[in-house]
């Protein structure tokens, strides 16, 4: 399904094997806790086994769903807190004129090509998931949801494979439950901070920030690691210089 990178959020929850976790079991039980392998499309249709889960069948279900409008958008950001911990920010927006809506949201930490990928089947294996519960969206307003995520050593060794998924579905306690919107970002994450070069948070990127960055040169975390890649280096210096002046 790599043919539709901008239309698809695909993740692989394991159950009943060494790579299952609390969230994957809960999510599986949310549906029926019985059929596996099974592809659940937008929380609605369960395609069981290789026959129903054939490429053409999955593609048709995806195209059917894409044709149905939605009124929810999701933007995802990630900012380094310390070591291997990031603050993930999800900004949900319900279109103006829509009815006030309650949703149930999940955040998922995935690793591409995990647990292994000998035949291309194991993409975006779920490392850990967070059921962030029920949230109320107001029309024309942004709702900000944040969650700290600590990546394990295995993920940290393959940072380019780290993915963060997020989705909002019907506020139900069991499936099927329609997914209104889904999103996924890859590491390194876009920053939620509109002015990351402003290290001392005084509203302007200036000499004080430059000196702070130089003093932290080589550090592996902290606000001086502007791009959040785990090292204060030339890339951070260049970004700071590019943001020189008043913050937006």
């Amino acid at each position, binding site marked *: *399904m790599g043919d539709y990178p*901008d*239309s*698809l*959020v*695909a*993740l*692989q*929850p*394991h*159950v*009943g*094997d*060494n*790579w299952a976790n609390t969230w*994957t079991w809960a*999510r*599986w039980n949310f549906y029926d806790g019985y*059929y*596996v*392998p*099974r*592809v*659940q*499309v*937008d*929380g609605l249709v369960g395609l069981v086994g290789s026959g129903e889960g054939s490429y053409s069948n*999955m593609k048709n279900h*995806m195209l059917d*769903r*894409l044709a*149905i*409008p*939605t*009124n*929810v*958008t999701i933007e995802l950001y990630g900012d380094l807190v310390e070591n291997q911990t990031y603050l993930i920010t999800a900004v949900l927006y319900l*279109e103006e004129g829509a009815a006030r809506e309650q949703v149930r949201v999940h955040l998922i930490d995935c690793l591409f090509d995990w*647990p292994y990928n000998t035949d291309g*089947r*194991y993409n975006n294996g779920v490392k850990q998931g967070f059921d962030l519960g029920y949230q109320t969206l107001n029309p024309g307003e942004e709702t900000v949801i944040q969650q700290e995520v600590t990546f394990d050593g295995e993920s940290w060794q393959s940072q380019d494979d780290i993915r963060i998924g997020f*989705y909002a579905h019907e506020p139900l306690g069991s499936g099927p439950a329609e*997914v209104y*919107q*889904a*999103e*996924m970002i890859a590491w390194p994450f876009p920053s939620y901070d509109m002015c990351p070069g402003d290290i001392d948070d005084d509203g302007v990127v200036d000499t004080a920030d430059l000196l702070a960055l130089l003093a932290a040169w080589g550090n592996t975390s902290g606000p001086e690691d502007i791009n959040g890649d785990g090292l204060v280096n030339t890339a951070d210096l260049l970004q700071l210089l590019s943001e020189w002046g008043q913050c937006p």
Partner: protein
Amino acid sequence: MRTDRRMNRSLIPLGLAVLAGAMLATSATEAAQRKVLFENFTMAG
């Protein structure tokens, strides 16, 4: 013929309004483009 011209003129604002409406509708659709979630439940053998 004069009547026809007047009718044509009166149709211009209507056409513009329809065009603007279509553009707004298009932008609204783009603002909330759906991404489809595939949860691929797997049990490795």
